[in-house]
């Protein structure tokens, strides 16, 4: 494996359910992403791209195959080890933003930092800095319900970037945004990830943002059809 390889899967399969009702979401998938890459996973609904992202994010176990994160084989990692891996190595951006409704924008960002052990004052300062970077300096104390969709996704990006995780995983980050905002948010994500040297894997079927990708991996019917 290359030293710059951040994540790699080999022969990955994932089957949901069992017996006659089982569904094979991934069929012997090989995939990798290198340091600083901005990779997009595209494909129709039900193609298996979100399942692949879930496995890369250590929130879902594969049925078979190997998963390597930062040169560490975590295929057989114990369940108790996974939260710490996610906390320290991976930043998540979700389609529905998934901000904690009762926490302000800065508290949402600081939450991840504090869970990582950063003292409250430093965490709050870094959260403010990140929110300024994503263009939301005036919304620091605002609750998610008082933010627009685009603003919520910016907060979610700031949260994902908090603590400089080397791998960012985004699931349909533009799905709930209009075309213009979606493009703006993705450009911002790419720029911020680039300046931090983070690797980004984005699941999307939004062809308006494809031009921002370093690589587009097309999945269909649980198989990688194209890697360009």
């Amino acid at each position, binding site marked *: 494996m290359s030293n710059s390889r951040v994540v790699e899967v080999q022969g990955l399969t994932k089957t949901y359910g069992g017996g006659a009702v089982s569904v094979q979401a991934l069929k012997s998938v090989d995939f990798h992403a290198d340091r600083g890459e901005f990779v997009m996973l595209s494909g129709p609904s039900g193609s298996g791209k979100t399942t692949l992202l879930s496995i890369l994010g250590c*929130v879902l176990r594969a049925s078979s195959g190997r998963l390597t994160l930062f040169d560490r084989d975590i295929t057989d990692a114990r369940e108790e080890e996974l939260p710490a891996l996610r906390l320290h190595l991976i930043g998540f951006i979700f389609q529905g933003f*998934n901000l*904690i409704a*009762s926490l302000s924008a800065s*508290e949402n960002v600081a939450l*991840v930092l*504090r869970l990582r*052990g950063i*003292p*409250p004052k430093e965490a709050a300062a870094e959260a403010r800095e990140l929110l300024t970077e994503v263009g939301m300096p005036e919304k620091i104390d605002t609750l998610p319900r008082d933010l627009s969709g685009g603003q919520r996704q910016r907060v979610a990006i700031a949260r994902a970037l908090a603590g400089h995780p080397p791998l960012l995983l985004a699931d349909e980050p533009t799905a709930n945004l209009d075309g213009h905002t979606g493009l703006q948010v993705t450009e911002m994500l790419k720029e911020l990830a680039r300046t931090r040297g983070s690797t980004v894997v984005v699941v999307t079927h939004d062809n308006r943002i494809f031009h921002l990708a370093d690589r587009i991996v097309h999945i269909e019917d649980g198989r990688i059809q194209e890697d360009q």
Partner: protein
Amino acid sequence: MLRLRTVALAGVRMMFYDKLKFAGTLFGVIFAVVLTNQQLGVFLGLLAKNTMFIDNASAELWIVPASTETLQPGKPVSMSALYQARTTPGVLWAEPLLSGVATVSLPSGGSEQVTLVGTRPDCWRGGPWNLIAGSSSVLRRPDTMIFEDSERDKLGGLNLGSLREVNGHRMTVGGFTWGLLPFGPSYAFASYDLARELLKTPSDQTSFILVGVDPHADVASVRAAVQARVPTVQVLTREEFSRKIVRYLLLRTGMGVTFGTSTFFGLLVGLVIVSLTMFSSVIDNIREFGTLKALGCRTRDLGILLLVQSVVYGIVGSIAGLALVSRVAEGIRSPKMALVLPHILSIATVALMILLCAVASLLALLRIRKVEPAMVFR
């Protein structure tokens, strides 16, 4: 520690954010606090009414008939026990106390019963106390008695100087006590000799003997010494007699079962309400819990989050509930009904409510355990 503070903060913010759920859960805790405290307050009030005589008699030892379980007089005690007690080393004083049920004839033609208590003049060991009109010394006057103030109407509109026939003898009302209402008929006081005459008790018998112990003597040793001299009767310390009465009321009268059952159901209903609202709150916020797991929280962290919420619910609900109960207690306070709410009950309530909320949160925790972080991608 920082992690703990972080999840605690998130937990508190989450619970206050959904105000309706917060109010619902709080209602459950307040309901449990009010019901249990009201029931236990009434129960303790009734117990206090039945042990107040012992608490106020200032006697360290009581000589009572064998197998006595309450203050209701049974088989008489021989006056020879009084003299035996008085000559026992360590005994400071010993006084007889006569007690029995007497009938008061009413001007309307009916009659009511009182528990007539006869005590010796000057020292008046055994009462009267809590006097709101008159003084103990009025009992020195011939044919004079002191009655319970709250029973004045019941006894035909008593006033100071009113005349009533008690066990066929014409008596003058010389004073009133306040709140001396045991389970049975209210207390009425007369001098010892008058009470003996009214109750037709032979001069060599009495109901109880109160014994005061020298402050320098060991009560247990004096008790043993007196008991050795009067083997046919029981010698009990004040605490033993109180406990005996409480045990009797709890086990033999059904009071324990009645109040215990209502207290239990108060707690149970509170537990169910808190449990369901906390569970429903978790279901409503299931995506947030999934997100927290995806971001790196462990199930243990989320358990702490729920525990913190439980503690907050327990404390806030207890304080609100206790404030409400004390208001109720003030409102209904009367000689016949008094809620006894000792500080230890308040402290126990807070602890119990925190425990109740923690137990109630287990259902929510079971749900959180099953939350897959992968749900955030669906």
